[in-house]
């Protein structure tokens, strides 16, 4: 539909007939451009409309949850529903902490302990392994790397049963309890996780070798190069790994469900679920308040590190 090739080049002054043609052409161009502009505008409006609708759909459940969490029990039941709670029942949030059998503070503490140990462990160990895959050329590296990628495909449910048996056996035979402690949840993190190793390896590969060569000339050991040169340069990637593994712990449900037994050791995810089974579907306001409490730290973390988050997820797909 473009008329670009109809416009004569300005360097050669056109004869009369041609000039006329050019003028007509220009007029056509103008209306054409105006039409195109209008169509572009319409298109943009449509996209805005679609996006606003979609964003509303994404947000409404949140708002509904927050609204419910601040209502009295009788208001929750009111039909048609009220969006703005009146009166606002802030003490729903207090009730979560004071309820019988609820240990929200303890569950938060437990989750934070597991998260801290996991984040530290997986970031350190994955970085070490990733350095081996990225910067040292040795026989068998390709095969081992392929095996590592393949292990990413193994679903956790496949190993959880025999891991349970192994942890139980260790408890019976070594005098060191595993089941019913946090160990099954964080100790494996200290042996690197395939996903994080892969992510860090991709990042390390982009660091030029000249830096490490220079340090090697100066007599720096391989581990010294890793710690003093690569790690400081890899801070963004390390942050991504730390952030993702924190989120994974916060989110995890199945592993704590399998390996943790007493309610004093529940993580927040387990605690929230036990809250539901106690309350049934009678106290939606309290359930929603508890859910909001579990969500808020994640949202805060996200808004503090939004860019890191988005770029981190993007790299997993692009480099994959």
């Amino acid at each position, binding site marked *: 539909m473009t008329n670009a090739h109809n416009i004569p080049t300005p360097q050669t002054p056109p004869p009369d007939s041609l000039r006329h043609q050019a003028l007509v052409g220009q007029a056509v161009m103008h209306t054409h451009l105006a039409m195109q502009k209008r169509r572009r505008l319409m298109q943009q409006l449509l996209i805005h409309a679609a996006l606003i609708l979609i964003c509303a759909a994404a947000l409404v459940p949140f708002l509904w949850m927050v609204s419910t969490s601040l209502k009295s029990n009788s208001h929750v039941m009111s039909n048609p529903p009220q969006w703005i709670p009146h009166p606002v029942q802030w003490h729903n949030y207090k009730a979560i902490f004071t309820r019988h059998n609820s240990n929200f503070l303890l569950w938060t503490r437990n989750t934070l302990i597991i998260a801290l140990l996991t984040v530290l462990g997986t970031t350190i160990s994955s970085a070490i392994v990733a350095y081996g895959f990225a910067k040292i050329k040795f026989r068998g590296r390709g095969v081992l790397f392929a095996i*590592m990628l393949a292990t990413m495909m193994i679903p956790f449910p496949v190993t959880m049963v025999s891991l349970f048996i192994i942890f139980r056996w260790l408890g019976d035979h070594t005098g060191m309890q595993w089941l019913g402690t946090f160990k099954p949840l964080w100790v494996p993190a200290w042996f690197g996780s395939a996903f994080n190793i892969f992510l860090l390896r991709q990042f390390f590969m982009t660091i030029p070798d000249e830096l490490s060569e220079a340090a090697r000339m100066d007599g720096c050991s391989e581990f010294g190069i890793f710690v003093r040169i690569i790690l400081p340069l890899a801070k963004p990637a390390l942050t991504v790994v730390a952030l993702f593994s924190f989120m994974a712990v916060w989110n995890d449900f199945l592993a704590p469900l399998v390996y943790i037994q007493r309610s004093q050791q529940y993580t927040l995810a387990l605690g929230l679920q036990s809250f539901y089974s106690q309350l049934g579907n009678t106290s939606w306001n309290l359930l929603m308040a508890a859910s909001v409490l579990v969500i808020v730290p994640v*949202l805060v973390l996200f808004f503090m590190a939004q860019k890191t988050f988005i770029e981190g997820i993007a790299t997993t*797909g692009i480099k994959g």
Partner: protein
Amino acid sequence: MPRMSRQTVNFLKGMAFLSPWLVGVLVFTTIPIGLSLYYSFCNYPLVQPPVFVGWHNYNYMIHDHVFWISLKNTLLYALMSLPMGMVIALALALLLNANIRGLSIYRTIIFLPSLIPLVASAMLWLWMYNSKLGLINVTLRSLGIAHPPPWLTSTQWAMPALVLMSFWSLGNTVVIYLAGLQDVPRELYEAADLDGANLPRKIWHVTLPSISPVIFFNLIMGIIGSLQTFTQPFIMTQGGPIRATYLYTMYLYDNAFTFLRMGYASALAWVQLLLVLTLTALAFWTSRFWVHYQGK
């Protein structure tokens, strides 16, 4: 000390750096998978030592109708949620890749739901789907639908309800698509413009082939993820009503930790592993017909 060759030195260095993973993959992956292969041929009620029973568990599985129900449900869930989820996520990414104002706000909002921990979103959707007071049915009734579906308490609607709610948290997939879309070389679009291609043709002939590796990545992750879905049905429906949402991983979990049939659970674990591997291998095989890597 004899001088080692450079090759040997590098090999030892490499092994040293890889050692955490080498130990980890042995202890936390290889040994458990090997053990579960052995247990899958045993009768092992946990409180007593395992007794070898040959193919019994696998024979039992073939005639176990709960196994077939859970397998069918899982495949159904994957078939309903994965392809549609991938299309919706791609459509969202295309919208979010348009050249308009306020994009970063839209992107943030669409990404937010995928941050919500599974247990919390399960609670939220339990409430949304509540047949009497949930927001969805209240809205449907106000739109004049007198008898909206009872969602999670109906054998017919419970599964679609789980699928629908999975579309709420596609943010991760969208972000990965978006990154792919932003990597498509501009020249390709310019060339298509010169050829007079319209938008649908540009999407079909330029965008999709260019981001096919990203689509493939999302497909693989989706297959692996959806086949092990557990948390949402475990919390929201306990697999019901009448096993309508009883998924494979729930059956595995129940066998291991409710019925304490460790042998049978191990056999189920192996079948799940083989299923995931087969489907991923299938996806890899088809990929050579539709995945185009740049510069190859």
